């Protein structure tokens, strides 16, 4: 009887260990990838029937699909990197203004071959994806660009290209990649490597938040750069920060499984910046240039960096990841 109980307990313990990866795949990654594929498909369909950039159903569909991308934007490995799919979905930051240049060229040339899925998939990455579509929908110049018919056909091709990429990413995750992570033999040689990949994506997401989504518009006190905020044209800059934090929160908690203290610490450390991000009341992060508001955005960045420090010092070692000897160095 005792023996049975012991073996049940040890079985449960094994399952709990294995559960960490399964739970992250089944509760987080796979549903999120499915949501992205579905809302992107929806966007492609709506874009095919409505051309007027200001139309509410079109903006809603665009917003939903973009939301779904931001929720997975930290998962930059495997299926998103095949054939540069993620770069084709999100070419940002665009420090050299390649996106508007590419779109202007498309409109000027009005090449019908570009409008086929194959033709468009071959075109410059800077003219594809959510940020390019944002120009077409929210930038006054592009949203009213002529010729009207070509512009409509182009935005349809762009939305369809987004849907095709999102579908391919989802298909790879569902078809094979999730199983490769579960089996942990082959691409990943053991469970530790799988957990390290997930941990790395958590770090990537937080780094992206602190350095890009917050750091780029913050610039310096003397030289704030509000026009560098992510997706400011559509007023989504603040929203993306909240979405990203909300997506990283459950991932961090799941990776801390088995360590109740750390789970609670992480939970609290996420609640603070999430609440602060929600309360900013600054959709475009224009406050970076207003001394009276800037400190709140700086405080948010600090909280994200505190979170990174906690994750590096307390979560990393439990997953066999030590602070980078070379990666944190510079020489």
């Amino acid at each position, binding site marked *: 009887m005792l023996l049975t109980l012991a073996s049940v307990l040890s079985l449960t313990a094994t399952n709990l260990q294995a559960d960490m990866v399964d739970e992250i795949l089944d509760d987080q990654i796979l549903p999120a990838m499915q949501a992205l594929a579905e809302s992107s498909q929806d966007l492609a369909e709506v874009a095919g029937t409505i051309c007027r950039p200001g139309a509410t159903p079109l903006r809603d569909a665009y917003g939903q699909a973009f939301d779904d991308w931001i929720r997975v934007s930290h998962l930059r490995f495997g299926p998103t990197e095949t054939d540069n799919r993620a770069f084709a979905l999100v070419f940002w930051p665009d420090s050299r203004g390649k996106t508007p240049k590419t779109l202007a060229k498309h409109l000027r040339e009005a090449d019908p071959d570009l409008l086929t899925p194959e033709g468009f998939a071959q075109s410059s*990455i800077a003219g594809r994806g959510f940020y390019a579509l944002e120009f077409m929908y929210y930038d006054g110049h592009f949203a009213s660009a002529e010729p009207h018919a070509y512009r409509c056909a182009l935005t349809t091709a762009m939305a369809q290209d987004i849907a095709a990429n999102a579908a391919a990413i989802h298909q790879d995750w569902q078809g094979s990649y999730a199983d490769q992570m579960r089996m942990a033999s082959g691409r990943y040689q053991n469970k530790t490597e799988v957990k390290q990949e997930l941990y790395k994506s958590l770090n990537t997401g937080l780094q992206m938040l602190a350095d890009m989504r917050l750091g*780029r518009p913050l610039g310096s006190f003397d030289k704030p750069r509000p026009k560098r905020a992510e997706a400011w044209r559509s007023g989504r800059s603040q929203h993306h920060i909240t979405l990203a934090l909300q997506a990283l929160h459950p991932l961090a908690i799941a990776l801390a499984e088995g360590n109740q203290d750390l789970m609670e610490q992480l939970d609290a450390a996420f609640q603070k910046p999430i609440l602060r991000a929600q309360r900013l009341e600054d959709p475009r992060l224009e406050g970076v240039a207003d001394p009276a508001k800037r400190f709140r955005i700086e405080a948010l960045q600090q909280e994200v960096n505190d979170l990174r420090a906690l994750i590096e010092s307390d979560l990393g070692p439990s997953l066999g990841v030590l602070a980078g000897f070379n990666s944190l160095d510079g020489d």
Partner: protein
Amino acid sequence: MTSRRGFLAGLLATGLAPAPSWADLGGPAFLAAARQSDGHFLLAGLSETGAIRFTCPLPSRGHAAAAHPLRPEAVAFARRPGRFADVIDCRDGAHLARLEPPLGHHFYGHGVFSPDGTRLFTTENDYENGRGIVGVWQVTRGYRRIGSFGSGGIGPHDMVLRHTQGMPQLAIANGGIETHPDSGRAKLNLPQMRPNLSLLSLEGQVLDVMELDPELHLNSIRHLALSSTGTLGFAMQWQGDPGADLPILGLYQPGTPPQLLAEGDPRLRNLRGYGGSVAFSPDDQAIAVTSPRGGLVQVMETHSGKIIQEHPLTDVCGLATASTGLIASTGLGQIMTLTGDTAKQLRHHNLAWDNHLVPLT
């Protein structure tokens, strides 16, 4: 008491001992600095398959090393701002001599021997004057300092010996960044920085200076590799805003314009603006760069400049040309062989391998 070095030199002078050569070592192919799990630092000699042939303790964190062309002797450099360079007998790891930079200078972590092995050149910071310096040391007289000359820029880092038609040259990556030990590793001149790749004669005459377009003036040229035909590969580190779309790797054949690789390929972003080490493939058809920040090795085709392979590898930094492909080292203790699309672990040591793998050729 006769020092070991003095004793050996005496033997050599009397012709009683055969001159030791690299062949005595049973095949160490690379040198690399590392941190042990107890926090101490060392220099190791590695075989072609990543086995440790010898280790020698270092007083603090190392960076790169220079191998003597004839004798099994190497100089291990401290990480900048380096206060020492240790001469090591690679047959057994014995410590032969310690070089200290002149007052007001520090080492940058790289150096190279003259082809005949009589002189050692070291990249140095003359920090009171904000000048890049190449220090010259006479090997045959116990590594005595015999002079110095300007490096052709500010912040010289990596330096390699380039042979052309009988005239050896020093190729120097002047990173362009001014630092002063009083302010740690803080960068003092970013708005004005102008990195370059300089070619100097062994006497210090500037023969050629390559600078990139002014819009890339924040891209610090830091590490070098040399192909069998004398083409220089250079790896850069971006000092500007994160997220910019930038070249990290370039090729330079003096007399022709520099070629920046993979320009416009979004995957360059995966390197996070930071090239750590650079090496050519054994056949020169490809050149690779490591990015510890991106946890990645990117391999590019030399003739087209296209990215042909990405190898994800956590905390990778050291990289060198091996006989069958490329060899890489990581801060997690791995020695990896990279051939085609496969990355295979050769060895795992309980050490954190530091920035560079230096080939002993």
